[in-house]
């Protein structure tokens, strides 16, 4: 632990944060969220806070503004900014710090901007309110920041409304807003998590460039170690509100001392070889075009196939039509042209025309296990229903099978009578997998089942899916935007872009050169756990600032 010195901008000591929880039917309890956290941020340096959800990283980040989110109380320790303890300031004192000396960039810029006001006004608002600069100066600085952040048409960008720019641009506009009053410290709370990989890299580069240009210190919160490795000087690894490891980027990435950090660094270690024989066909999508009644075509002339017992990964950014492809296969969105055949027979186009046996053979797993399960049903009923529905199982036989399935997904029968709200994110996704398995399907459509989960939990789910494939010979169509997952589990890969199939074939072929433009861009955008990766990539790839 470095001793506080002159160059320290922010130093946090012995931080303790508590909240009160209200379990139903019991008296309120005080819960300690964060305990014994110490760190420093030097002038002009960037500290990365990393950890899984619930680790307390956002809560700790917000203490730099002496702020506790709804019901959260900072109950101990000190937060010194330039030697002054922020926790001892009164209401007016803290208002002078927030938005002027310390600024905040939220995860969802779309939700953080007021849709009724122009971007320019919102970017300079804090500077004017705090009396830091005149309107003319503030506008000049905003223009400078728009340029630094690589926003298109910086002169007129401020005249637009939030809905008129893309998500990546909005995130950069928010960075400009935070940088405008010349703050000493900025707290970035997962600024790129909600963005596509190809957009994320541009935003990341822009943020890095801007904080270097303006010599601002920053706290960068994320759950992605590969991202944090590109942008920060020091890293603090958190778990369950406690410090796990604190050190320089180089030390954390190259020589982690703690078991948990090592697991985080090596998280993308799952992998397997593709199947040699990819000739059989279980699912065949032939020249499918689909869209909505207003004439907008989401999918155009998509053809692909998937052999039995293998995994097809469908990759693309949001809006590329990959989820729509799954909806067409399930019959939720009947195709306008083309056919979907299963096991050699064409499937009826719409859901209504399909029999129970056809429905049983294709199951689906969703991205958000929360909304994919009825919150009023117990695990027993959620997994048991397909058993009754497809196989007519009842009573003891059904309970036995449910227990068997719970064993298969590595959860015990003590979960039988729990409601979804009483499960963790990973457990929920496991139950959703068990529900799909209960139908003894031949194909499971997985719609980004791991993208809402923490890296270590996600890895557990992927391993489980691979294990289940070996046991039951089920095929997966795995929709994802994460190339690392594709490398880990796929036999064949389909790359989609704006509703069209750009590339399709065995994994080894698709992921090796020569590439088409889009696949090249996609592959180069995935952050790697390597210091200096961002600079290396940016040299070989033009900034797509206008597009994102």
């Amino acid at each position, binding site marked *: 632990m470095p001793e506080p010195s002159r160059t320290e901008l922010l130093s946090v000591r012995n931080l303790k944060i508590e909240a009160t929880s209200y379990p*139903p*039917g019991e008296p309120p309890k005080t819960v300690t969220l964060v305990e014994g956290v110490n760190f420093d941020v030097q002038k002009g340096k960037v500290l990365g806070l990393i950890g899984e959800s619930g680790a307390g990283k956002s809560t700790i980040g917000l203490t730099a503004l002496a702020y506790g989110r709804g019901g959260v109380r900072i109950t101990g320790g000190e937060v010194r900014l330039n030697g002054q303890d922020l926790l001892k300031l009164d209401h007016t004192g803290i208002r002078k710090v927030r938005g002027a000396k310390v600024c905040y960039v939220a995860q969802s810029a779309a939700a953080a901007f007021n849709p009724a006001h122009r971007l320019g006004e919102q970017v300079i608002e804090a500077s004017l309110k705090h009396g830091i600069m005149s309107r003319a100066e503030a506008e000049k600085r905003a223009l400078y920041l728009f340029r630094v952040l690589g926003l298109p048409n910086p002169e007129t960008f401020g005249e637009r409304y939030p809905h008129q720019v893309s998500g990546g641009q909005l995130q950069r506009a928010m960075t400009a807003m935070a940088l405008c009053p010349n703050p000493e410290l900025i707290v970035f709370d997962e600024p790129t998590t909600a963005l596509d990989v190809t957009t994320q890299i541009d935003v990341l580069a822009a943020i890095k460039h801007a904080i270097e240009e303006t010599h601002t210190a920053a706290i960068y919160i994320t759950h992605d170690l590969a991202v944090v490795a590109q942008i920060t000087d020091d890293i603090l690894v958190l778990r369950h509100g406690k410090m796990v490891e604190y050190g320089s980027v180089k030390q954390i990435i190259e020589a982690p001392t703690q078991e948990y950090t090592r697991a985080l660094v090596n998280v993308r270690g799952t992998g397997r070889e593709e199947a040699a024989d990819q000739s059989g066909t279980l699912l065949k999508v032939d020249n499918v075009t689909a869209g909505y009644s207003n004439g907008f075509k989401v999918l155009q002339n998509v053809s692909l196939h998937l052999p039995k017992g293998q995994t097809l990964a469908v990759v693309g950014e949001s809006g590329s039509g990959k989820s729509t492809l799954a909806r067409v296969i399930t019959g939720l969105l009947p195709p306008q042209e083309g056919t979907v055949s299963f096991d050699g027979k064409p499937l009826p186009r719409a*859901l209504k025309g399909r029999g129970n046996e056809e429905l049983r053979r294709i199951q689906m797993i969703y991205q958000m296990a929360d909304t*994919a399960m009825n*919150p009023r049903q117990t695990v027993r009923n959620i997994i048991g229903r397909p058993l009754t*529905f497809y196989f007519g199982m009842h009573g003891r036989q059904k309970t036995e099978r449910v227990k068997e399935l719970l064993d298969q997904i590595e959860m015990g029968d003590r979960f039988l009578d729990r409601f979804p*709200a009483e499960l963790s994110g990973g457990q929920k996704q496991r139950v959703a997998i068990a529900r799909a398995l209960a139908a003894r399907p031949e194909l499971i459509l997985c719609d980004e089942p791991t993208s809402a989960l923490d890296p270590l939990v996600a890895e557990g789910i992927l391993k489980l899916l691979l294990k289940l494939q070996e046991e039951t010979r089920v095929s997966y169509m795995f929709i994802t935007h994460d190339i690392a997952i594709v490398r880990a589990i796929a036999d064949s890969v389909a790359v989609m872009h704006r509703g069209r199939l750009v590339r399709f074939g065995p994994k080894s072929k698709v992921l090796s050169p020569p590439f088409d433009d889009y696949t090249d861009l996609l592959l180069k955008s995935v952050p790697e756990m390597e210091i200096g990766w961002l600079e290396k990539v940016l040299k070989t790839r033009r900034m797509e600032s206008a597009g994102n």
Partner: protein
Amino acid sequence: MRLRAIPLSAWIGIAGIALALFCAIFAPFIAPHGESEIVGEIWSPMGGEFLLGTDNLGRDLLSRLIFGARTTIFVALAATILSFSLGMLLSFIAAVTGGLIDQLFSRFNDLMMAIPTLIFALVVLAVLPQHLWILILVMAVLDSTRVYRIGRAVALDVAVMEFVEAARLRGEGTGWIIFREILPNTLSPLLAEFGLRFAFSILFLSTLSFLGLGIQPPAADWGGMVKDNKDGIIFGISAALVPGAAIALLTICINLVVDWLMKRTSSLKGGRGDA
């Protein structure tokens, strides 16, 4: 469910409802006098021979209150339950099927709501023969338009959730989707609405009685009793306030129980409810 987990407020509500139901069921045995029996002076004060005094014709107020519980609770409860069954069924079908059926139901509902309820009820009740079941039916149908509105709104929210989509993909029928997937997730707002609608039913019944189309005299009902004794208020006689207070207390008791049920069901979702 443990009895100790029930909060005090809910116990008060349960006790109040139990008392009202007890009066309604055993009215002939516990009432000191007959329902329409004239036993004393007009508007004699509380206490003394008659515990709550007498009404505008010299009938015992307590006895009429006990007998009134019968008609009031029965008619209001029957009308509310009926209107909820009808409104929820139609609204859920509309939300789940969508398209033409949704449009048809919703526009017809708009049409019904466009006509002022009271005038509609007056016309219909004046034309139809005066039977209790017709009264209940008319109240239920008119009230169900409000239930339909709320029901459709909450059901639409749930119907687009992925677990409903999952049920559709499984091949479940509309019945299962409505009763097993959507209904349990819409209970909280609908229960709250039930408590409110029940209170409105009592008031609506009183209004109708007041206009001479509700419960026909000499049968007692709480709303009608307020009307009978309203002139007394000018002379400082509180007889009208007694049935008024009974309506208020019953409404409060029902809402206390409904509040507790709502908290119980919403805590299942993992949220704090509104504790």
